[in-house]
């Protein structure tokens, strides 16, 4: 999963932490607090993308980019983060050699989207934007191995059994809510299902729950009924899988 590495360059502790927080969910990263430190990193390691604040002490973002270009330190995209809002010089940034620029305040979704587009330029981002790197598999084993750090196999299996019975209840409630056209109740139930399945790496259920959630928001009742049926089937498949999966039997 986390095969791409990003260099975060920002002198503001709080901003840097927030960037790290966001980026760590999808990529590995290193952080530098100014342009000099960034240059230092780039001479030693290679990165797939650089996120560069413009106003920094020591060596600012403009100067750092010039240095990167002069010494040919990387060919990876450099994305500028700037507080200068409403600039007429979008083109200036691009002319200077930044691949993109993002104006503060940062919107997490926008930031991640921009990063993704630059890291995976060949992937049509409209198709994948709703499923950021979540593959449609029954169970993401990497999630299990993470959980195993903190739990016994028995405990994890117990959690999955709870998840399955919880899912049954949530889906029943959702069907009831659909019959009553109770949008709020529908949203609540699907939200919990999305959170649970995502956290447990039950990807196929998670992706279906996302579609269902979208159906509710679009008030597409016919599609919604179908989506709920699909979810019920997927739940049964998942249940069988958990009972048979070897990983829990070892």
């Amino acid at each position: 999963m986390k095969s791409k590495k990003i260099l975060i360059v920002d002198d503001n502790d709080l901003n840097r932490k927030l960037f790290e927080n966001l980026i760590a969910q999808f990529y590995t990263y290193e952080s530098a607090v100014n342009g000099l430190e960034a240059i230092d990193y780039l001479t030693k390691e290679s990165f797939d993308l650089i996120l560069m604040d413009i106003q920094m002490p020591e060596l600012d973002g403009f100067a750092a980019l010039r240095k990167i270009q002069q010494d040919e330190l990387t060919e990876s995209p450099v994305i500028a983060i700037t507080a200068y809002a409403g600039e007429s010089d979008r083109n200036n940034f691009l002319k200077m050699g930044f691949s993109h620029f993002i104006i503060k305040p940062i919107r997490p979704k926008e930031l991640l989207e921009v990063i993704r587009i630059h890291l995976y330029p060949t992937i049509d981002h409209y198709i994948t934007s709703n499923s950021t790197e979540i593959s449609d598999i029954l169970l993401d084993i990497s999630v299990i191995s993470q959980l195993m750090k903190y739990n016994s196999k028995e405990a994890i299996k117990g959690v999955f059994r709870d998840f399955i019975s919880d899912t049954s209840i949530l889906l029943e409630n959702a069907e009831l809510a659909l019959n009553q056209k109770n949008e709020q109740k529908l949203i609540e139930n699907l939200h919990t299902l999305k959170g649970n399945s995502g956290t447990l790496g039950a990807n196929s259920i998670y992706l279906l729950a996302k579609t269902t959630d979208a159906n509710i928001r679009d008030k597409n009742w016919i599609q919604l009924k179908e989506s709920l049926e699909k979810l019920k089937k997927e739940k049964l498949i998942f249940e069988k899988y958990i009972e048979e999966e070897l990983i829990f039997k070892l």
Partner: protein
Amino acid sequence: MSDAKKILVGEDSSIIINLTKSVLAFENYEMKAARNGEKVLELLEKEDFDLILMDLNMPVLGGVECTKMIRALANPIKSNLPIIAITGNINNYTMDEFRKIGFNEFIQKPLDFDKLLATVKNYLC
């Protein structure tokens, strides 16, 4: 009194409560769960905690309103506790908005428990 750090978790999913509990127990943190924002406020009034993890989407009283109310509490120890938001919809807020509401940080759902533990540890060491 034990010196184990105590964490209050506002979260309505029992699955996530259970998993979070075992992850936090790994570092010997004690955890109590509240199923909605009102219960968070009740527990916080009765007991002392060192940190709060707050889901944004909870019935009765959501995480945003609840956090604003905690920040307005008279007791400075309680009103200044670190509060970490847990949310499946990061795009609903900018980072500045998160900070203005009173959150110290946020963690995205689906939860990455390594990340969760690292973030919590950061505030409690």
